[in-house]
């Protein structure tokens, strides 16, 4: 189902020129948004890299390594918190084939790589703040030599008291992870809407709980790696696995103290990112670049799985205190939420993650009175970072548990209760943002309840007293599109058409398995130009493309693809004009489809795509264009957390059916039903892939994945023996998704983005299903068999 509910355009550039307005991005985005018939958009077009990948021919960073390149081995801290009294590299340097040992003092530019706050060195300086922090890089002629020498870098530590518990860190002033901050609070957020006292006074039921969620490792198949080659293409070229080539470029430039134009970054195929390589990718690249810069030789770094797990940022661990109230008629009256994020040793993107959690704390519901306080707290553990959902899965888990508990107290079915409060166009969010369009979640949830058989199962299950108990649960979530608040966001790309009619689009968006550049970007360009899809090549992940932002925040096919849409649309306008002259018709009558150019309703007057391009070259039509678009943003007041938080929201829901073995605590997820209100589905095949992958990753997070730290903050399971992720045999049946295509006015063809979505409600849906099966509220993740078993035992659910 497709809906067109558009508000007034709130911004219109005054271009003045008549010609320019034809290529005005607002006009072009709007024009293609209103398209009614499609050639390739909305179809399950096979991705360009399918065969290459199936045959094992696709190349990843490591495949570009050649013998003779230098190898870099990292030396990681063995202390959670200590002063570095000295680093003795002499012994390591005397080992055979060792070329260099790099420490903080060797960095020619700035040793500062914090994304949100300037609190993080590339290589530890002065002190170490977690067990696993990178202190030195050993550069040697081969991997064996580097590995051997790395053991002989002697670091003289003076241990400092360390702090691991975020609640303790919040209180204490005597042990500080960052002395200069004066406390262990890295960042705070706040929302004040209405008056919560008044809201709670109107409540007939109140639910108050404390929730805890845990870290998660991305565990991408391909660990972090980078290869830096001095002088290639006239610059220092770095081939790396990073989710934003331009960010890697600027971090490298900063660390080396050279202009960004001296650095080129290429991101080849990537073996998974999930946000982890948004944070760690540029740092990996900077380490390789540093070695290449200082030695003048091609240098290669590849993390072992253990190094990766010990040092790269993790999904945030949280403590969420949540109080909510509702009236007898099933309307939410107020929420009061305190969110504590254990950010570990560095803030990294923690402040942004906390903002996202804060703004989404209500769940996708209308609540008149809201108070939310967020704390991003330093501890001496591996730091938190971006991970599919970005602060949202944890807070939606808490919000959705609250919804179930309120519904239970009110005696209303949980879906029915949600529907009574659900955000719809015309309602405001907890930041008082008016939703003017693109909010199709209520419809999606209604459909989902039907296809899953919700109402009967919800009554039937949850009453058994036998060993195996079934439950069904729902999680509904929302996820703001683009960066939060007024943080600038834009898109761009460059497209050119060669004389033979082949088309190349250059984008900084990367291919990390999700397929944005190799599927949806191609479809968008083919649709807009009308050129045959085989003629479209997308060159992705290159800093030589105009900066169009990162491949994160589910933006690869939404904001990230506006650039290719606008660039293609500009060229299409010119081609329409040219064709109208050639075919003697008006530009709006020109049809370009399947390699043919003709007048609508008159197939007789036809030329081929190739002929049209030849004419363009001979008549002086520019067949190259960039597609810059700066996303308009509203006002947001950080001090009270009120205003426009995001240009629009994607919505997602999941219903999960589980069976709990009360004697072992094992939870089997039998089936999940996903629903998505994420605007236009450009490629259903790709979207299904994203939903399935996210559902499984979410299930793994809830049921089995956990990092175990010892009392020094050392990770005890940094390996695949004891960090357990789902296998094919753990995967539940995943139903065909329900789609509500609630178009977003600035999305390409109305697309809002999908990548993170299905993971966000998974913890809530599964935990709610388990709570339903047992009749016991689950407030803490993960729900391992052991955890469930002891809940069962504690509540005397079995003899």
């Amino acid at each position, binding site marked *: 189902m497709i809906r067109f509910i558009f508000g007034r355009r709130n911004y219109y550039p005054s271009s003045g020129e008549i010609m320019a307005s034809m290529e005005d991005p607002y006009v072009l985005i709007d024009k293609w948004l209103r398209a009614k018939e499609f050639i390739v958009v909305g179809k399950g077009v096979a991705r360009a890299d399918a065969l290459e990948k199936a045959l094992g021919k696709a190349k990843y960073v490591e495949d570009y390594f050649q013998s003779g390149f230098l190898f870099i081995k990292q030396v990681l801290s063995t202390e959670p918190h200590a002063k570095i009294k000295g680093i003795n590299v002499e012994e390591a340097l005397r080992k055979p084939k060792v070329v260099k040992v790099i420490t903080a003092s060797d960095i020619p530019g700035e040793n500062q790589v914090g994304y949100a706050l300037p609190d993080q060195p590339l290589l530890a300086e002065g002190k170490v703040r977690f067990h696993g922090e990178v202190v030195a890089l050993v550069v040697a002629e081969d991997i064996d030599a580097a590995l051997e020498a790395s053991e002989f870098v002697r670091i003289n530590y003076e241990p400092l008291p360390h702090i691991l518990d975020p609640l303790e860190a919040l209180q204490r002033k005597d042990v500080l992870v960052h002395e200069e901050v004066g406390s262990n609070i890295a960042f705070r957020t706040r929302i004040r809407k209405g008056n919560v006292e008044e809201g709670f006074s109107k409540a007939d039921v109140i639910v108050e709980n404390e929730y805890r969620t845990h870290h998660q490792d991305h565990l991408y198949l391909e660990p972090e790696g980078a290869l830096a080659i001095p002088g290639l293409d006239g610059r220092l070229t770095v081939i790396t696995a990073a989710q934003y080539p331009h960010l890697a470029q600027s971090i490298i430039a900063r660390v080396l103290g050279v202009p960004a134009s001296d650095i080129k970054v290429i991101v080849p195929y990537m073996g998974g990112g999930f946000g982890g390589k948004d944070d760690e990718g540029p740092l990996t690249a900077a380490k390789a670049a540093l070695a290449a810069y200082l030695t003048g030789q091609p240098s290669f770094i590849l993390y072992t799985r253990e190094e990766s797990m010990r040092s790269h940022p993790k999904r945030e661990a949280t403590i969420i205190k949540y109080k909510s109230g509702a009236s007898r008629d099933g309307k939410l009256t107020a929420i009061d939420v305190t969110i504590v994020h254990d950010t570990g040793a560095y803030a990294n993107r923690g402040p942004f993650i906390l903002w996202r959690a804060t703004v989404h704390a209500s769940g996708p519901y209308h609540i008149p009175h809201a108070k939310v306080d967020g704390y991003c707290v330093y501890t001496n553990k591996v730091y938190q970072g971006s991970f599919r959902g970005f602060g949202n899965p944890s807070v939606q888990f808490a919000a959705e548990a609250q919804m179930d508990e309120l519904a239970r107290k009110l005696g209303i079915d949980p879906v029915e209760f949600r529907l009574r409060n659900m955000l719809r166009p015309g309602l405001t969010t907890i930041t008082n943002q008016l939703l003017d369009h693109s909010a199709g979640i209520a419809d999606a949830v209604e459909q989902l309840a039907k296809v899953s058989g919700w109402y009967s199962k919800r009554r039937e299950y949850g009453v058994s007293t036998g060993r195996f108990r079934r439950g069904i649960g729902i999680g509904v979530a929302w996820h703001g599109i683009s960066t939060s608040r007024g943080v600038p966001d834009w898109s761009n790309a460059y497209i050119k058409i060669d004389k033979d009619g082949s088309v190349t689009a250059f984008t900084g968006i990367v291919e990390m398995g999700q397929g944005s550049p190799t599927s949806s970007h191609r479809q968008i360009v083919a649709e807009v130009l009308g050129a045959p899809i085989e003629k479209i090549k997308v060159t992705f992940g290159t800093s030589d493309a105009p900066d169009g932002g990162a491949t994160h925040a589910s933006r690869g096919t939404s904001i990230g693809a506006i650039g290719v849409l606008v660039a293609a649309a500009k060229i299409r306008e010119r081609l329409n004009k040219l064709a109208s002259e050639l075919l003697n018709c008006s530009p709006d009558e020109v049809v370009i489809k399947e390699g043919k150019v003709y007048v609508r309703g008159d197939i007789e007057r036809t030329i081929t795509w190739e002929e049209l391009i030849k004419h363009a070259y001979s008549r002086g039509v520019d067949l190259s264009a960039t597609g810059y678009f700066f996303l308009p943003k509203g006002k947001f007041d950080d001090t009270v957390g009120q205003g426009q938080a995001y240009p629009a929201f994607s919505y997602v829901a999941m219903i999960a059916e589980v069976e709990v073995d009360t004697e072992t605590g094992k939870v089997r997820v039998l089936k999940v039903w996903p629903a998505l209100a994420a605007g236009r589905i450009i490629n259903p095949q790709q979207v299904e892939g994203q939903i399935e992958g996210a559902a499984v990753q979410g299930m793994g997070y809830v049921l089995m994945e956990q990092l175990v730290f010892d009392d020094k903050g050392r990770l005890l399971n940094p390996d695949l023996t*004891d960090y357990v992720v789902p296998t094919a045999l753990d995967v539940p049946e995943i139903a065909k998704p329900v789609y509500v295509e609630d178009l977003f006015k600035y999305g390409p063809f109305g697309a809002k983005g999908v990548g993170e979505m299905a993971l966000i409600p998974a913890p809530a849906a599964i935990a709610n299903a388990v709570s339903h099966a047992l009749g016991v509220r689950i407030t803490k993740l993960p729900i391992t*068999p052991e955890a469930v078993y002891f809940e069962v035992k504690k509540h005397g659910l079995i003899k």
Partner: protein
Amino acid sequence: MFYRIPKFNYYRASTLDEALDLVSSLNDFKVLAGGTDLVIDLKVRRYTVKNVVDISRIKELDYIADDGDRVRIGALTKLQSIADSPIIREKVPVLADAVREMASWQIRNIATIGGNLCNASPAADTAPPLYVLNATLRLVSKEGEREVPIAEFFLGPRKTALRSKELLKEIVIPHEPGCGASFLKLGRRNSFTLSVVAVATLVKVVENKFADVRIALNSVAPTPVRARKAEEYLKGKEVSLDNITEAAKLVLHDISPISDVRASAEYRKDMSVVLTRDSLIKSLERIGIKV
């Protein structure tokens, strides 16, 4: 954390005699079968040795033989061959059950049964079924051969009754028709997982009474263990759910689990009881008895 294998001398034997010659002439050595345990242990430096003797190509130790009243398995038989063997499936299906749940297809195609036993991990999954089958291990050295009952082979974590110049040659499993046996493993996911607890049980029933009962568990003591108390309790008793449930609780007398990243000791204890009961029920089902 170190991932470079320190240098060692590499020797490869192509016959058992050659291997025995090699090990008797070397001192500081380890033998390499499939290497799925050893290579990792060398990397993390659980062992540092001067010499490695590769025995993986000794064809004469790769077999599954059916002698009628017993089944013999060569030490270098791959786990996947055991899972696929019609002899094993017919005569000692409980071993096939255990092996099928081990590791992954790729690992099972290089890992050997001898390696699983000689590695002597408390979590070795072939141990519980071999314990309840009363298997004996035939050990060989230049001095000759000897037989050791499996329960006497495991001395502690990574410690076995093997003498320094001795190799495991084969596993001998008596065939006892009319017994029902089963294996249950609790891991942290549905496949490709090390056991938190695994249990094998074997029962023989005469006139609705337990004529014989054997129970073995892994991951709950320094070595795989027999649960003798529980076995004794059931012998001679009537087959009933109550008796089984009572007996299962007695496994606690023979186990001493620890807490680690995989599970707490308390969970392992409780699960030992649950799995023992479930396995006994399943073993009875195998001989057509429902309780």
